[in-house]
């Protein structure tokens, strides 16, 4: 059997706060091959923290525990900070949620992409620049030459998101965690961005974790979906089986959306059962 790309077993992330401890992620387990995995759940359910724990970017006041946390067979829990840094950006990477805040406002697109590339490749600045150009082209940015010289605030939301993706993909990573890559975008731009990611998985055989709170979207995009609630995975399903979901939370999530094809008044609402969080 080939080793899966990512193995997570019983992952927990807790934060120490002045008022006590917050358990953000509690006993999450999953494995990921070279496929598309979606993670959905409401705000604060621990989606992002799961992704960050994988990359080793949990905030200072947080602690990560797990039975196993591995990337391509490498035990991430044992790896030194240096080893993890070598993995980060080159083999595993993450597209951050909002390009407006996630790009460095005082560095040009070129500086930021080149920096990402040269952090892992011993290449000249010019070579790195060429690679950046090619990368921007591959995420289908018009006039990549011009865009390279721009600062983040000069980019539109869609461009920024694509720059972000280009920057994270330039090293040809094997795992991409995309944290709500489209939440800042207009519905019409959203499709464009997702299609780019989709193509990369298909073409490069990359593993993709798509984090979102939009159940419908994730289901139509991914192979497999994890539903999180209060730091736990409450349900794991195949995307095509979404409408056969068993857990009341998942069912509630699907049901409570207003839909164009069904006019329901009033909308069904979610009755939270405290037992879900246990």
């Amino acid at each position, binding site marked *: 059997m080939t080793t899966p790309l990512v193995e997570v077993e019983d992952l927990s992330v807790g934060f120490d706060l002045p008022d006590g401890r917050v358990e953000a992620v509690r006993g999450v387990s999953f494995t990921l091959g070279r496929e598309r995995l979606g993670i959905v759940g409401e705000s604060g359910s621990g989606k992002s923290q799961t992704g960050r724990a994988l990359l080793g970017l949990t905030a200072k006041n947080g602690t990560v525990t797990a039975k196993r946390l591995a990337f391509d067979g490498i035990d991430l829990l044992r790896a030194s900070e240096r080893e993890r840094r070598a993995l*980060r950006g080159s083999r595993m990477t993450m597209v951050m949620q909002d390009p407006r805040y996630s790009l460095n406002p005082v560095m040009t697109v070129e500086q930021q992409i080149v920096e990402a590339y040269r952090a892992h490749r011993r290449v000249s600045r010019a070579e790195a620049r060429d690679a950046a150009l090619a990368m921007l082209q591959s995420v289908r940015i018009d006039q990549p030459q011009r865009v390279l010289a721009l600062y983040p605030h000069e980019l539109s939301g869609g461009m920024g998101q694509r720059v972000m993706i280009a920057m994270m993909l330039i090293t040809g990573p094997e795992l991409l965690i995309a944290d709500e890559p489209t939440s800042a975008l207009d519905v019409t731009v959203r499709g464009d961005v997702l299609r780019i990611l989709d193509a990369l998985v298909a073409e490069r055989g990359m593993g993709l974790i798509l984090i979102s709170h939009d159940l419908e979207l994730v289901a139509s995009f991914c192979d497999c979906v994890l539903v999180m609630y209060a730091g736990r995975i409450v349900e794991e399903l195949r995307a095509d089986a979404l409408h056969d979901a068993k857990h009341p939370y998942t069912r509630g999530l699907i049901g409570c959306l207003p839909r164009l094809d069904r006019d329901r008044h009033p909308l069904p609402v979610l009755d939270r059962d405290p037992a879900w969080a246990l």
Partner: protein
Amino acid sequence: MSLDQSALAARPERRGAAALGLLGGIAGFLLTLAITLLGLVVVTFVIGRVVPIDPVLAVVGDRASGDVYARVRAEMGLDLPLLEQFRIYLVKAVTGDFGRSVLTTNPVIDDIRTYFPATIELATLGTLIGTVIGIPLGVFAAVRSGSFLDQVVRIVGLVGYSVPIFWLGLMALLLFYARLDWVAGPGRLDIAYDYMVTPVTGMITVDALMQGQTEVFWNAVSHLVLPACLLGYFSLAYISRMTRALLLNELGQEYVITARVKGLSETRVIWRHALRNAAVPLLTVVVLSYATLLEGSVLTETVFAWPGIGSYITNSLQNADMNAVLGGTLVVGAAFVTLNLLSDLLYRLLDPRTR
């Protein structure tokens, strides 16, 4: 201590101003300068009239006869109606004629040319020291916030805020000059080196270098070091605190995580990404602290027998030598406004969002 977060406060306004373009910027600057200076002229005039000091006394002394007193009073235009006095004062100030200082008998302009460079020298080195040490300290404190090191930096800074400067100054003199002999004593230069450089800029270090007098240069530096360190300590206290606060703020931003996601080293993340962003408001902090030092620190100047603009203005004020007060105040005010503009310009250079 008069430094403040107003450095940051000015941000939104400046962004707006930035949009007006360079030309508008210069015109705006000149207008601001003019208005500020006019304000200073008015305020100094009022001060001159309300201080309960007879300006004639500074000229004639206590023993003059009544006739001499009356004549000098008339010469000084003090018997004219107030409004008329103000008109003359204003016209003179506008035409750049600050008249003569009673105390030094020199044209005020000349005085400023000698006293202000002394202060600039001191303030510049002080700010340099404060910045070069303060920023790294602030960075370390931010990176290890909550740690022992952080507490140490904080206490060091707070001590800087809390200790009377004349106390610290005398103690430093006693230790580093009298006991340890590491630095030269009060004053700007050893008497042996006096007259060896001709004043051009008025800053002895600069003049000495320009004229190739390395020995004089080092002597001047050795005189400069102690008071500059002292002033540097005070700006360090402020700069390190602001650096810490600003950097902590930046370190909480998403783009820092992005940088880490890229696999960059922590050093690069902090110095190249976070600090580069913090540098934008930090610049204003440094410039403001510099501007404050340029006002001259009367107390430091007294302790170190430093002929700077601070004690010049204070001394003049105590003698109701209003020409000198006005000249000194205007120069300091103009320096303040100019520095503000400079920081605005640099701000635009550093922050692409304002271009």
